[in-house]
């Protein structure tokens, strides 16, 4: 089956593609939604302009679609983007990295159902510590690019998701209910390398912007 992947450049959408490929599916395009609203309800925003380099590393064509990021209206933009992918690449289904968000998952399910295509959410309801361990075991190199929940601060930006990260996030999960996979928007991630990349990416420059308890790291990669 020919699939399109909703792709933010973060760990979840990338690992979902990995699972699809491991199961023998062909991923013919990546669909990235560039939201002008940094607090989009549906889409991750940090470092999304870098997805072009990730798409090149993956060797999968990238379809970029812009949205103003207004609640519910951005769903229309997503539908347009999926329709474009269906027409351009003949996709028969969509893969997402949704884990817990029923808001996100149910809306994508409705769009796919209306367009008569399959919807795959291979990380759905996955234990988030298990996901972190899977990423490490499968040699995904992932860094934190945004932190937005106390007690996470700017010092977490750029941290790699490794065994040390799990050791540090576990007590915060127990004490502050920080979701270890950032599913509640606590943090966002960027994949620098994984087994599907032809060449890994390196961080060349970073720019950190902090507003109140919201910290973001824009990265230049090469």
């Amino acid at each position, binding site marked *: 089956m020919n699939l399109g992947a909703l792709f933010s450049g973060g760990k979840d959408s990338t690992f979902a593609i990995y699972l699809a490929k491991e199961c023998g599916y062909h991923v013919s395009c990546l669909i990235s939604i560039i939201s002008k609203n940094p607090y989009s309800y549906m889409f991750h925003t940090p470092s999304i302009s870098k997805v072009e380099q990730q798409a090149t590393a993956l060797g999968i064509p990238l379809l970029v679609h812009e949205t103003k990021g207004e609640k519910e209206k951005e769903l229309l933009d997503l539908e347009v983007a999926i329709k474009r992918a269906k027409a351009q690449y003949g996709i028969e289904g969509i893969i997402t990295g949704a884990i817990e968000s029923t808001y996100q998952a149910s809306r994508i399910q409705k769009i796919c159902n209306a367009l008569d295509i*399959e919807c795959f959410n291979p990380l759905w309801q996955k234990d988030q510590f298990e996901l972190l361990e899977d990423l490490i075991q499968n040699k995904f190199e992932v860094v934190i690019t945004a932190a937005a929940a106390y007690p996470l601060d700017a010092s977490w930006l750029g941290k790699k998701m490794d065994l040390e990260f799990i050791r540090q996030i576990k007590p915060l999960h127990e004490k502050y209910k920080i979701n270890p996979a950032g599913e509640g928007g606590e943090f966002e991630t960027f994949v620098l390398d994984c087994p599907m990349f032809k060449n890994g990416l390196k961080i060349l420059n970073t720019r950190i912007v902090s507003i109140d308890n919201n910290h973001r790291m824009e990265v230049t990669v090469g």
Partner: protein
Amino acid sequence: MILVVNVCFEKLHYFEFVKPIEDILRNGGLEYSTIHYTQISEKDISLADSIIICGTSLRDDDFFNKTEEFSWIKNINKPVLGICAGMHMIGLLFGGELKRDTEIGFYEESFRSFLGLEDSEQVYHLHNNYIDFFHMKEFEVFSKGRIPQAVKHRDKELYGILFHPEVRQKSLILNFCSKNNL
């Protein structure tokens, strides 16, 4: 041992519709074995203490063309829980009528006492079809809405739920297992 039945045609759907059920059983300390519905043998059924038939995606409905693969449901005397697609198959095997109605996302549903469900609960729906259990005398409906959400055979331990308990009613799975002393 609990037999978990995978009804997904698409291999990738295992992660979304079967693994979450396995995780609930594993975290509950319960032993299970998962088999695709096309590969279930009489021995698999005889070895199982109870059976959970998982759901699948909105468009992954190849199982409707292979009703005969589920014929064991008709004569079984073991506890069976059918989730969404599994509920459809239980209903079809007992002569129920498949009707079209799409529900996706959280819905508030009202229940009479059913595997730990009481009164109103938000349940996660993902279906394009349902079985009209209201007209099936062998089954009792435990939900109050227009579409049967929770049913049980009047004489057998055959349960069906239309919603996906792996999202917000994980304890329902364990209640099914503990009710049957597993």
